[in-house]
């Protein structure tokens, strides 16, 4: 298994943009994806890939597969389905590069495809009914071996899996994929006000679920 590191994912990128916000001491994780992608360089790479440039196609796969896999896994809660959804998404991306509208950020387009693929995969799974709807994470598993930070992360993932899909997807896109509100509205085909409303509700529900999973230690996030 390859470990994915958000920062090393940009290693193969054609060029980078300096992050003023990082220099200002802000939450580096939150701003990194917003600022780290050089739109012109990415657009050039996507254009090259569309013309069949193997190196550019490999760069797209290397850069976006970890992001799509992470999103699919947390949407579907099942490694096998996530792998299938990731492969299907990335193949669609590579085959339909000519349909990409450069006025949108490439990541937004990719996550739009990933989201639709996850919805299809979820429906297929419901029809097959061969695997559980959600492979829930038991936050108590291995609790003794893990640090408090890891336990909190496990509880958060478990709480996310218990959220309705429409709440889960919007929180994944905002908190893990670090997309902007406007980009999320674009992916979900929703007005911005509705996106905000849904994020508030989703966060509120997530906090309830998270606290419900917390052991009686009085520790709060």
């Amino acid at each position, binding site marked *: 298994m390859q470990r994915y*590191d958000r920062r090393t994912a940009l290693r193969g990128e054609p060029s980078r943009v300096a992050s003023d916000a990082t220099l200002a001491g802000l*939450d580096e994780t939150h701003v990194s994806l917003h600022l780290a992608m050089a739109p012109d360089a990415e657009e050039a790479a996507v254009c090259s890939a569309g013309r069949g440039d193997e190196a550019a196609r490999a760069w797209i796969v290397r850069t976006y*597969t970890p992001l799509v*896999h992470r999103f699919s896994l947390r949407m579907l809660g099942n490694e096998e389905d996530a792998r299938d959804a*990731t492969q299907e998404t990335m193949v669609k991306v590579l085959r339909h590069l000519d349909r990409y509208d450069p006025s949108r950020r490439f990541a937004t387009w990719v996550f739009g495809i990933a989201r639709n693929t996850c919805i299809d995969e979820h429906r297929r799974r419901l029809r097959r009914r061969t695997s559980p709807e959600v492979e829930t994470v038991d936050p108590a598993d291995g609790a003794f071996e893990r640090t408090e930070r890891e336990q909190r*992360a496990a509880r958060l993932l478990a709480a996310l899996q218990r959220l309705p899909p429409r709440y889960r997807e919007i929180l994944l896109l905002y908190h*893990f994929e670090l997309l902007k509100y*406007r980009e999320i509205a674009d992916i979900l085909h929703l007005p911005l006000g509705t996106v905000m409303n849904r994020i*508030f509700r989703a966060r509120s529900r997530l906090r309830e679920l998270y606290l419900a999973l917390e052991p009686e230690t009085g520790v709060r996030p």
Partner: protein
Amino acid sequence: MKGHLSDDLLERFDTGRLSRAEAARVAVHLDACSPCAGRAHALDPLASVFSAVEDPPVPEGLERAILEAAARPPRTEMDLAWPVAGALLAAAAVLFVSGGDPTGLATAGARIAGAALLVGDVVTGLCSPVFLLFVCATTGLVSSVAAFGLLGLSREVS
């Protein structure tokens, strides 16, 4: 919205105490203003927990599998042409061999095809559409030949 957002406004935004229109205006500002976005992000009590979640490892060989799958020619409508042609030929064969009594055999063929589709529904997800069409066409052909044999036998007996 000019300048940076006040703490009070961000707090009301974070707790959903703004109208949709106000929240949308704040969101537009946050999308364009990294310092305010960072401050809004820090207000969420679960933000630190989100950052504690590690990224899952990418399954080994997945990237290679994607590149290989993308390099293969995609399925086209032509891929479906042969099974459809097979089904049409099977139907034509049924009509041809049924002689003067096509109605009975056509009805039987339709029932068999319906049953085959039902079976196809059951195994959906296990087989590709191309394979299902192939199975339906083969079933139709075999059943029509069998029906023709039975018809001939019944004529001989009578």
